[in-house]
């Protein structure tokens, strides 16, 4: 989902939680969109380019195309902060600290929004749900996922 939408929803969620958690809602707000940084990390690894603007533009283009055609162009991309393992680790940590609980709320909210969008546009295959699963699948085929990306070049 577009980061602007995540930020809008994050603001609303933080406002709703404000009476209960006071200033801690700042963490909920930031964690409701900051984890999209893994898209940027993935872009850097793939393109060896640090341009945030180009990464954003490419993501926008890809999103637009997938939504319009309701078709997946890139499959099984690994976004580490969206993976189930990361959520489980945060879930465990949230038993020990309220700060992690706030982060978990923001991340779960973020993921729920992504899931609705993927369900609506039928693009579930575009993202790998698990780091372990991704490693098993792509073990020994080092550049195959990069080749898949190469087929789609919006810029």
């Amino acid at each position, binding site marked *: *989902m577009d980061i602007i*939408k995540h930020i*809008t*929803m994050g603001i*609303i*969620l933080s*406002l*709703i*939680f*404000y*009476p*209960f*958690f006071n200033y801690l809602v700042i963490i909920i707000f930031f964690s409701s969109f900051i984890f999209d940084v893994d898209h940027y990390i993935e872009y850097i690894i793939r393109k060896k380019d640090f341009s945030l603007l180009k990464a954003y533009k490419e993501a926008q283009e890809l999103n637009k195309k997938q939504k319009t055609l309701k078709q997946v162009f890139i499959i099984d991309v690994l976004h580490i902060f969206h993976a189930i393992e990361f959520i489980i680790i945060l879930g465990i940590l949230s038993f020990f600290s309220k700060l992690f*609980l706030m982060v978990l*709320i923001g991340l*779960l*909210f973020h993921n*729920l929004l992504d899931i*609705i*969008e993927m*369900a*609506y546009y039928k693009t579930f295959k575009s993202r790998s749900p698990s780091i372990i699963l991704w490693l098993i699948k792509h073990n020994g085929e080092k550049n195959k996922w990069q080749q898949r990306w190469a087929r789609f070049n919006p810029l």
Partner: protein
Amino acid sequence: MKKTIAIIIVLLSTFLTSIGQLFFKFGANKLSLENLFSNYLLFIGLILYAIALVIFIIALKNNELSLLYPLFATSYIWVSLLSMFFLNETMNLLKWLGIFLIIVGVSFVAKK
């Protein structure tokens, strides 16, 4: 901590209810007599509603009904925003004002 968890669960429940509504709309757009029972979008909506209800009941164990039930009003906010994002429905100033007032109302209920 249990009370906090109850609040979080209720807000999750409201969000699931809203997603359920969204799926009802998706399903309704494709609704006809022939596909009434094979319309999976409607069933997803129903399942989400059922999950939301179950977790709401779980939350009720650990906090007051007079606090938790008004939180359900936040589902109106989620439905408005999700409709804007997924159904391209427009938000005007009055709708935003409504959302703002719901947030204020929920804050008043939450503050003891």
